[in-house]
């Protein structure tokens, strides 16, 4: 069987639950070979899925993951930087350790994954990178200062990398979901969620399928003229 017939290689971070788990299973259904990671062990299996237990901001762990992909298949087609950490707190009562952890997971991690993935994508002059951001950035939500700032960093990273990596045939885009019923927003009070929904043009909660739909578009071969873009769901 040719390498192409085995399906593209898609790396997804944060696959143990939530949007990441959904995306991994979605692309496995589409015939991709998926490499995922999370800090915790995985509760599900698939023959076309390889899991790495690593923190996304651990440089050595990230390098090990990509070295493993190179030895197995010597190609990376897609990277989806999904792993994220949120904390709803007024800035005056936000502990330093929370600030550190959010920036490490939401900004440093995606940078490391982009860097290592692009090294392999560049050799084949093809690659698609999609970063997860949030509507908390354009909506400037009170109580999410560090989370929104880290994701604003991701959007800036997306735009600059789009320019740096274009000559390697790599596109870099971002998708900003509205609230989705996952563990990430479990602790957010209902009235806060309702207020957030009222700010959207389409005032409903999002779904993992909504996110996958946008990523499907960014990953398409034909989307080679689409880069440096951030697409928010819900008309934000």
């Amino acid at each position, binding site marked *: 069987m040719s390498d192409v017939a085995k399906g593209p290689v898609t790396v997804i971070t944060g696959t143990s639950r939530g949007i990441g788990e959904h995306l991994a299973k979605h692309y496995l259904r589409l015939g991709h070979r998926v490499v995922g990671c999370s800090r915790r062990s995985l509760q599900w299996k698939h023959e076309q899925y390889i899991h790495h237990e690593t923190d996304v901001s651990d440089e*050595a762990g990230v*390098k*090990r993951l990509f*070295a493993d992909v*190179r030895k197995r298949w010597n190609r990376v087609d897609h990277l989806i930087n999904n792993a994220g950490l949120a904390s709803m707190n007024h800035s005056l009562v936000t502990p330093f350790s929370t600030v550190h952890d959010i920036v490490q997971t939401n900004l440093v991690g995606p940078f490391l994954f982009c860097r290592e993935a692009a*090294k392999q994508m*560049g*050799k084949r002059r093809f690659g698609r990178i999609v970063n997860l951001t949030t509507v908390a950035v354009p909506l400037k939500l009170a109580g999410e200062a560090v989370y929104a700032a880290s994701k604003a960093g991701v959007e800036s990273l997306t735009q600059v990398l789009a320019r740096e990596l274009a*000559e*390697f045939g790599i596109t870099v885009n971002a998708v900003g979901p509205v609230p989705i019923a996952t563990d990430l927003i479990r602790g957010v009070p209902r009235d806060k969620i309702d207020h957030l929904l009222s700010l959207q043009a389409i005032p409903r909660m999002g779904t993992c399928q909504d996110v996958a739909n946008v990523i499907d578009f960014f990953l398409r071969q034909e989307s080679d003229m689409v880069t440096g873009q951030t697409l928010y769901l819900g008309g934000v």
Partner: protein
Amino acid sequence: MREELLSLVTGCAREVGELQELELPSDLTPHTQLFGQQGLFDSVGLVGLVVAVEEAIEDQYGLSVTLADQRAMSQERSPFRTVGSLSEYAVKLIESSR
């Protein structure tokens, strides 16, 4: 090890040259410039070379090194100037990783 690394870097330079469809000189010496006006590569080619050398070191020595580290970037004379300076820098990195 110096000779080994010289040959590794030269091999990687040829590999990247082929990928970029460049006509490299038949004789690559330690003094061959990699970058700049008389250099073999443009910035994209140089990035490709750095990646190729990192991977070759991993395959040959089982070591994961980062050539473009803080030390490399802060040196007055870039280790990426010539085939020889890159080989020397790779030797230092390998020796300090062991």
